């Protein structure tokens, strides 16, 4: 498989995640979109690392290490984001991202 194929999948996932964040009216969709984007990025990291250093070694693992840290960040982000969503839901009684607009007033 060529690197391009992996990149294509990653791009598709990235755009889908972006679309999900922009177009769907639910904070949880935003959360899911972010996860998709992070996954796409991870795929890129790993694919580049694999093709950059096919022989293995530390260089080949760098991408994986980065991806691992991204996954860790995603976990933290998901926990906090979910807490924010629930918080917003209990305050505004909605999960639409455009409703909480207290700062505008």
């Amino acid at each position, binding site marked *: 498989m060529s690197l391009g194929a992996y990149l294509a999948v990653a791009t598709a996932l990235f755009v889908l995640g972006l679309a999900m964040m922009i177009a769907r009216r639910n904070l949880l969709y935003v959360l*899911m979109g972010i996860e998709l984007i992070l996954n796409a990025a991870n795929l890129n990291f790993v694919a580049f690392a694999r093709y*950059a250093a*096919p022989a293995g070694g530390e260089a080949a693992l760098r991408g994986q290490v980065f991806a691992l840290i991204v*996954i860790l960040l995603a*976990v933290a982000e998901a926990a906090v984001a979910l807490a924010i969503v629930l918080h917003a839901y209990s305050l505004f009684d909605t999960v*639409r991202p455009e409703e909480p607009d207290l700062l505008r007033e």
Partner: protein
Amino acid sequence: MERIAFALFAAIAVGGGLVALFHRSIVHSAFALMGTFLGISGLFVLLGADFLAVVQLLIYVGGILVLILFGLMLTKPDPSERKLRRVLLVLAAVAVPAAILVARIASAARWAAAEGPLPDPKPAAREIGFLFLLKDAYLIPFELAAFLLTVALVGAVFLARQPHPPPPGGEDR
């Protein structure tokens, strides 16, 4: 043959993403996302990142997805979700050409040693552990990640709690 496996996993990943984006029911979207995560896990395997593939399964499917499902059960979906916005279609229309374009660019660029079949991957779990802890290269990111997780845990618990103490008797539960 690797092509077939790749096509399978890529189809699962992208198909899951598409369903997640376009399905009217958010619960279906969340379950479709599981397909995406599984597909990406498979792609990781094909890329020789077996440790990462299992981590992907464990964290995304076992952790984040369950969290999202919990969130779904605890919130009320918006009724206006029933009608999808046109933006969605436009973006989806952008996604496919963009992916093809990136693929073209990527294959046109001269990446080092990207030609020909790659040697078989080696198991990476132990090496990643060494990288993180023994060779000092990634010790600080590792510690920072641990610190971040702790902070996120405390923060999430703090955030999810009631913002104000409920007024006596006037709580509209």
